[in-house]
């Protein structure tokens, strides 16, 4: 069982969350000309690292907020969690 610290609600079990995938992919800016290659990179390509991974989770049975979780994909250790609007550079 993973225990995820929701920045809004506190420490909750994995059962309350839905996974939302890689949080580092960036949607292309819509007011610019976007090539097929850029769309391809955004929609399909994933680094899927072994080790630290920044990912989205949805606290679907809690506050229903999207959050970002920094987790190790080989040990499942969770280092830190963030609100969705944090770490946006």
């Amino acid at each position, binding site marked *: 069982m993973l225990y995820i610290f929701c920045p809004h609600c506190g420490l909750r079990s994995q059962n309350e969350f839905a996974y939302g995938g890689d949080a580092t992919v960036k949607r292309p800016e819509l007011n610019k000309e976007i090539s097929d290659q850029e769309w391809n990179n955004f929609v399909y*390509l994933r680094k*899927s690292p072994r080790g630290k991974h920044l*990912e989205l989770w949805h606290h679907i049975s809690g506050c229903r907020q999207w959050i970002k979780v920094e*987790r190790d*994909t080989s040990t499942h250790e969770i280092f830190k969690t963030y609100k969705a609007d944090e770490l946006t550079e």
Partner: protein
Amino acid sequence: MQKYSVFSLIKNAFSDHQNWEVAWKDPTPKKEYDVIIIGGGGHGLATAYYLAKEHNITNVAIIEKGWIGGGNVGRNTTIIRSNYMHDDNALFSEFGMDLWRKMSQDLNYNVMFSPRGIINLAHSDAQMNAYSRRGNSMRLNGIDAVLLNREEVQKRIPMADFSDNVRFPIFGGLMQPSAGTARHDAVAWGYARQADSMGVDIIQNCEVTGFDVNNGKIVGVRTSRGDIKAKKVGLCVAGSTNILAEMLNMTLPIETHLLQACVSEPVKPLLDHVVTFGAGHFYCSQSDKGEMVMGGDLDGYNSYSQRGNLPTLQHVLTEGIAMFPFLSKLKMLRTWGGIMDMSMDGSPIIDKTHIDGLYLNCGWCYGGFKATPASGWTFAHTIAQDRVHELNAGYSLNRFNTGDLIDEKGLGTKTWIS
């Protein structure tokens, strides 16, 4: 190579089975090979075998970080089927079914192929319609498919829940009678033994640490046992694909996810077929030892851990008990996990890459075991001829760019969603 037969078995019985030849050797890596296959799982071993057998390329090494057959080929639920709707998947898998039927003879190794049939249960009229469509698509591609009504299903699997007040009543099912199971370890060992006998070097405990690429052409791999030169290199590493891709500065349409499976304690024979639950993701068959072999959903988040987490297992077995209530009385014998190369449309990739001489075989999601012979056969062709075969032409790496996806399940890019 020593031929396995009833006579060799009797002969060796007289010497207490102490004098069998080793099934494959333990060579030290040579300086250079024509082809290096990275990954000593089912697909890698099959690729090496077909390179030698079909293309007469025997100066081949298989490089394996651990031991052969220690990954997904030894961790799956052994199901073999070709009940696909899309042409690319259907024709590829049905080609594989032919190889499965001949495999034990071809490899002189009993892979215990058991065409016991698979039944996908339907729990609504809409699902019966969808299965009718899928069955018709299969038959158009020459694959056997039978639509069963409720009574016909009940005759085949009377232990399923046919009572009145169930959440997901069984309306019927789609059966592929020629589908079945095989002994997964034997598949790896059978391919390894034949490949070895034709001159392939199987190099275990040898981890790839880097690649040598010169002017856009592969020239060799760096390993924990030294640098090895190669004219061509094929990647067959399933869940570890992204780790090697990173060394090559490639980003792929692949995410690595964890899938669990489990077996119950052994019981007397009661289940003749492979059966899948239609209102969720659960599949079950009975092994020759009597264990119920079960699996279902991915754990649902990126993972390289090869061991599972309880919530998913609990969820999957809840579905199992909804389908087969007797399962609740059985004790669990073992659970385990393997890491899956989940592609962004749920279909595999067997293709060349932008690096000359580097070939890619990945994206098998949770359907890699049944594809072992067809994957090895087509990958060997792709490597030997430096061009894809028509059977794997649809499994291109570029299809995500061009929009020619093979979205068999209609899940979009989130193929890990349950």
